[in-house]
């Protein structure tokens, strides 16, 4: 058994053990899945990106960068940005990197110029002297005199500059955990269809008392419209179920808030409900109370908890895009248009004057057809394709050469046999 096989089996067993550990742990702890994805994606992402920027062959660099982008998509998914995770794969991996590959393969941009890359290491580009040369001539070598070394030091300094404030200056809760306490005060909502359109909105408000960091108590009671506050396992009120149909005017909103005077949570819920009433034409997934409770409990301590607000979902992103951010969206379409026109103009090949007719093959593949082909087109023997603008010109007289006899046609090697 050779060493490679043993190594492969060992690595496979370790990977299998890791996967089994993750699966077993995940069954008891939903948040652990996110931790595992984060660890794997961040480690692999850094490793692949370092590999990507150091490859000589651009194709390998692109394939490594593809891995980085997939890891990024996994992180976006953990960060509850589902829509963006999918777009990352579709647009970045599927479109942008493929564009790079097309350019490399169509234009044969192959590898880096070895001399150029070597000059980066040696520091001889632009006529600068290397450290050795400078030392020999007594000028004294500057220890940062190669561009590669300078780039490395600069990027490490940049990393330190970016990381240090995060590590040393930023403390406290919002920076050190994604907990449900930092969930939005936006509600999760769902709708119920009863044949007359969407009738019922269920609004969940995350209750948070900023003064005590404890969930605020909510008085029991209610009307026909409003539930007495939904409670979680610890008996804390986490939201209301409010039934409302159609758009809500400001007067109606104020009247509804009046029914529970002084209940700030309820007032927030009603205000959110008024905003949500615009959604009634949209199809919203109807979840049962049981499903809502189950998903809330499952993701209680996980970054995924934010899911119950529809955060990162296609409807939420689409609503934001076409509502609050409509003008930026339109400007982006202009930028894309300008980019498209610019790409076409820049990449267009400049043709010589008179060039631009159809491309005509001058050397067919079959050897017996050469003379026939050339006689018909009146073309001279050449390599590949030539432009024949005169073939476009219907007014020009077509020159017909007299047909040679059959022997000449089929005698392609010219020795008259």
């Amino acid at each position, binding site marked *: 058994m050779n060493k490679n096989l043993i190594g492969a089996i060992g690595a496979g067993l370790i990977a299998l053990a890791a996967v089994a550990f993750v699966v077993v742990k995940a069954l008891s702890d939903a948040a652990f899945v996110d931790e595992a994805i984060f660890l794997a994606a961040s480690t692999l992402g850094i490793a692949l990106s370092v590999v990507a*920027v150091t490859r000589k062959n651009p194709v390998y660099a692109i394939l490594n960068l593809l891995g980085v982008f997939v890891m990024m998509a996994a992180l976006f998914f953990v*960060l509850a940005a589902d829509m963006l995770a999918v777009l990352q794969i579709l647009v970045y991996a599927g479109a942008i990197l493929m564009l790079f590959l097309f350019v490399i393969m169509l234009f044969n941009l192959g590898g880096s110029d070895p001399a150029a890359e070597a000059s980066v290491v040696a520091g001889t580009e632009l006529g600068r002297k290397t450290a050795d040369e400078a030392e020999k001539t007594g000028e004294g070598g500057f220890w940062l005199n190669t561009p590669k070394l300078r780039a490395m030091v600069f990027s490490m300094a940049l990393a330190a500059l970016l*990381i240090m404030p*995060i590590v040393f200056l930023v403390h406290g809760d919002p920076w050190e955990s994604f907990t449900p306490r930092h969930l*939005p005060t936006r509600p999760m909502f769902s709708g119920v269809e009863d044949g007359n359109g969407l009738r019922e909105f269920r609004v969940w408000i995350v209750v948070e008392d900023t003064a005590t960091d404890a969930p605020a108590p909510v008085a029991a009671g209610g009307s026909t419209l409003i539930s007495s506050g939904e409670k979680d396992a610890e008996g804390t009120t986490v939201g209301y179920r409010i039934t409302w149909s159609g758009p809500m005017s400001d007067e109606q909103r104020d009247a509804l808030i009046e029914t529970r005077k002084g209940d700030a949570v309820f007032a927030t819920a009603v205000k959110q409900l008024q905003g949500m009433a615009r959604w009634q034409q949209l199809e919203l997934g109807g979840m049962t109370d049981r499903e809502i409770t189950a998903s809330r409990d499952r993701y209680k301590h996980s970054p995924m908890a934010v899911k119950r607000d529809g955060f990162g979902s296609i409807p939420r992103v689409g609503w934001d895009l076409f509502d609050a951010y409509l003008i930026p*969206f339109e400007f*982006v379409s202009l930028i894309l248009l300008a980019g498209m026109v610019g790409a076409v103009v820049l990449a267009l090949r400049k043709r010589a004057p008179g060039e631009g007719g159809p491309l005509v093959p001058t050397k067919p593949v079959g050897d017996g057809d050469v003379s026939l082909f050339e006689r018909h087109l009146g073309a001279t023997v050449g390599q590949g394709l030539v432009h024949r603008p005169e073939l476009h010109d219907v007014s020009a007289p077509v020159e017909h050469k007299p047909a040679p006899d059959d022997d000449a046609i089929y005698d392609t090697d010219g020795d008259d046999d």
Partner: protein
Amino acid sequence: MLTPKNLLILSAVLFSTGTYGVLARRNLLIMLLSIELMFNAVMLVIATMARMFADSGGHIFMLMIIAISAAEVAVGLSILIALFRMKRTTNPMDLTALRG
């Protein structure tokens, strides 16, 4: 482990890696790729912040970044193709037309 802090550190590392690629390489294609890597690091910061402040407006900015980087790549690669036609090189040190 999965905290906003760690995610920001991760994106700082990725951004610096991209910076190194732009500065140290002498191949225009790989420099463009490194810029894509930097774009992605910025997107990770925005995704983290969007999650942290639970504001899905951040996702809109990520969408914009994706669209703009697509346009940037299209134009960048066209410039690269035009330059390669003229000079037969992808080494930025050979491109001195704008040097005074």
